[in-house]
């Protein structure tokens, strides 16, 4: 048996398991051992479900022996701790849910389980997915495997770090304003946020319902395609999931990208983008062009409004979504409350961290009588303008390409005192959430030893073209295979 199972992608592992080169139990044991020895510094996990994982691996090996099993049979994955997992702690990175054991599985958890996946654990994240650095987690920040002084990004920082550090070949994540793609870019992994409604939100603890979308972080586009195929599709339990056919995403990778119209957004290269990042992205665009893609300049005139718009809409929804955490039925409850108001105030005051409180207050404010029109309603109108901009652009191009993040990974603590600078980190990613579009980030180089991501956005349900474009890019480059030195 190879000692390097952790270096293999999901697709490679699927082949190895299929060939009988190793068992799922062996693979699971190897990864669990790795997590046990290496995650103390990285802090990518909130919970490691070793026993359950080994049991699932044994079942997978048995079903394989019996000639059965789904497409992910015996393959290890980790879940962001925002997804409810039955009988397993589901904290959402918050003290509020420090002791919350979910009584049910999220739809995507259920679907991955049904396909035979082996869940190794639950990954650390910004509290309630609110953050871009993983520093708002109650369970402490996650460190970036490329530089332990630096943030892996957020909010799906634990998932991204776990995949980059080769703890697991794949992780689920959620993306409300860039929470899959930005950490993927900052850790040198592939991060896919599907079209809003492509993947069920049932069992995913809501941050901003109209923006939240579940997706994956992997080490190759092919793996992302494989997982998306399992996760996607209508779910009767989520009214916003859309009944749209699920193509074979892996099959769709092999098509040509000759003549694929790739839009380059004029505004993407304005001030704010690190010059070396810009150079890496330009180089990536040249690679696509060499593969036959046609580069076209496109305009997203309202791009600069996306961050302010997002920071009205998302807090508004979160202020309402997080009202259920009141200390009454589940979650943190203050000791010895004097009365109902005291129970509410202290349970929430103690249970939520500073960033969550900031957003609840912002959201409460923008929905208040007298402010609703000026903030919430106005933001909805601007949101429509931004969506219209994308619609116009996609009349001209098939994919929009640009940087995922304005800078490579920043140092932990660098931006914690300045929420606005932190928020601006999501300038390139937020638009796709506001417009409900699919988007992914794939590694496209390094700046001073830190990974940089290429961001691709597609029209609604355009995942197949996005994945194909990214896959072609990976055929020409090996950025996505780069591994941080201490985690080889």
């Amino acid at each position: 048996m190879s000692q390097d199972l952790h270096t293999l992608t999901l697709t490679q592992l699927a082949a190895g398991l299929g060939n009988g080169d190793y068992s799922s139990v062996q693979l699971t044991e190897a990864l669990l051992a790795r997590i046990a020895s290496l995650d103390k510094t990285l802090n990518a996990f909130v919970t490691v479900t070793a026993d359950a994982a080994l049991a699932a691996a044994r079942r997978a090996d048995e079903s394989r022996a019996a000639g059965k099993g789904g497409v992910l049979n015996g393959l290890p994955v980790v879940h962001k701790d925002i997804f409810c997992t039955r009988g397993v702690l589901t904290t959402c990175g918050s003290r509020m849910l420090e002791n919350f054991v979910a009584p049910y599985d999220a739809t995507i958890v259920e679907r991955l389980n049904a396909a035979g996946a082996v869940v190794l654990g639950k990954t650390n994240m910004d509290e309630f997915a609110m953050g871009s650095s993983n520093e708002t987690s109650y369970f402490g920040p996650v460190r970036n495997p490329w530089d332990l002084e630096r943030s892996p990004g957020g909010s799906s920082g634990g998932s991204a770090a776990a995949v980059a550090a080769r703890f697991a070949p794949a992780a689920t994540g959620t993306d409300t304003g860039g929470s899959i793609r930005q950490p993927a870019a900052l850790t040198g992994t592939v991060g896919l946020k599907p079209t809003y409604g492509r993947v069920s939100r049932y069992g995913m603890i809501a941050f901003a319902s109209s923006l939240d979308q579940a997706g994956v972080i992997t080490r190759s586009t092919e793996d992302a395609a494989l997982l998306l195929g399992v996760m996607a599709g209508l779910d009767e339990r989520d009214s916003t999931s859309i009944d749209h056919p699920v193509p074979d995403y892996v099959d769709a990778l092999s098509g040509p990208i000759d003549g694929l119209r790739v839009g380059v957004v004029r505004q993407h290269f304005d001030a704010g983008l690190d010059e070396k990042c810009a150079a890496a992205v330009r180089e990536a665009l040249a690679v696509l062009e060499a593969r036959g893609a046609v580069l076209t300049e496109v305009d997203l005139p309202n791009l600069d409004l996306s961050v302010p718009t997002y920071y009205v809409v998302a807090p508004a929804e979160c202020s309402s979504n997080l009202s259920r955490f009141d200390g009454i039925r589940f979650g943190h409850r203050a000791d010895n409350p004097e009365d109902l108001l005291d129970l509410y105030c202290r349970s929430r005051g103690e249970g939520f961290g500073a960033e969550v409180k900031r957003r609840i207050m912002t959201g409460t404010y923008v929905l208040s009588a007298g402010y609703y029109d000026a903030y919430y309603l106005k933001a909805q109108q601007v949101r429509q303008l931004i969506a219209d901009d994308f619609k116009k652009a996609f009349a001209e191009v098939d994919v929009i390409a640009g940087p995922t993040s304005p800078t490579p990974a920043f140092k932990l603590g660098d931006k914690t005192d300045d929420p606005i600078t932190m928020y601006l980190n999501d300038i390139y990613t937020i638009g796709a959430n506001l417009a409900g579009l699919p988007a992914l980030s794939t590694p496209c180089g390094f700046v001073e030893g830190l990974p940089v991501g290429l961001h691709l956005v597609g029209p609604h349900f355009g995942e197949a073209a996005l994945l194909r474009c990214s896959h072609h890019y990976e055929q020409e480059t090996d950025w996505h295979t780069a591994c941080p030195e201490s985690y080889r």
Partner: protein
Amino acid sequence: MSSPWEVVIGLEIHAQLATVSKIFSGASTAYGAEPNTQACLIDLGYPGVLPVLNEEAVRMACKFGLSVNATVARRSVFARKNYFYPDLPKGYQISQYELPIVENGELMITGGDGNQKRIGITRAHLEEDAGKSIHEGFGRSSGIDLNRAGTPLLEIVSEPDLRSAKEAIDYMRKIHTIVRYLGISDGNMQEGSFRCDANVSIRPSGESELGTRTEIKNLNSFRFVEKAINFEIERQIELIEDGGKVVQETRLYDSDRDETRSMRSKEEANDYRYFPDPDLLPIEIDDDYVEAVRATLPELPDAKQRRFVADYGLRQEDAGILVGTRAVADYFEAAAVATGAGAQIVANWVLGDLSAALNRDGLDIDGSRISPARLAGLLDRIDDNTISGKIAKEVFEALWAGEGTADEIIDKKGLRQITDAAAIEAVVDEIIAANPTQVADYQSGKDKLIGFFVGQVMKATGGKANPGQVNAILKDKLGSA
């Protein structure tokens, strides 16, 4: 003397919709289960769960809209009404705000002057109910029962068109009748399936500006609505006549003390921060859907009343009472069709003896121990003079006791009316012979004594002699008074 004050009332009626499961979850809506046994994760507002709309609730709201001549919105939107309360699990109630499913309806009631009066229905919207807080039996804490959380409600909001407590009650009864006719609510007020909030204000007669209103919350009987409104009108008049001002506030009616009490003022009112619920899509309804629902509408009470008057010749008032409950109207019609006795007779029996028997045994019409066909059988025997009206009461009781059909009972008990003139004459002769004093008195002018003789004959025949014949034969034999 006309009052110097005009009363202005608007009602918000909450009708619990009779769906099998809740409006956004699959949990049962059945009443009376053990606390918290009918609340699933969605009703409990667990992290990660999402609402899925029960289409049956939409159909029911649509039915209601069509029944009150309203516009059924082709697109309506659920909104979140945000406030903290322990029996509101999510910290918000899913309701409809700017775009309700039903708008601009109307209803006719009989106004204070006896004429028909139009009452506007501003809107009716779908929403979920909250759970219940239980403040007794938990020491310093309170208990929460979330069985009711997520039960579908239709909130029906009237225009401020009502001018007295009586009009308010008439309107509320009419809505109550309609929702039960449609089968969209059981209307059970004890269980809280039908309750209302009343907005009450007064203004000088002739004034067009509305006065400051108060809202009386959670009235769950017609009697309480009437008493609470009347108390509130008196309170407001006294307040203003003493130089005071009405404060806009929410008040509670205390039925034990028959008074309303301030609950919270406008300043203390919640800012509900309504916004469209991003977890639910707008309800989109097309014309085909509306027409399909329209095709399922039953005949409504007003139309039925008109038909009962026109087709059966019933008195307006009797028809009005009969149609008040769909099952009573159906009972009446089934019996009326089955008998040759005449519909007004049927109505008299249904509203008289049958209602009395039902009340006595605490039954509603569906529990009647006499079927419409058997009642018709009884009325036929009165109609063809087989029995007298008096004997009919006895047969009715036997029918109620389940002793068979009217014919079987009449035969078994030998209740058939005596119409044989010779037989009656023989009894009359006996009675005349036995009462010489009374005969003399009668013949000397005390003609009221005819009643005495009739009574004696009826007594002797066990009530079976035909009263008309008895009368005629007696008069003939006694000679003129």
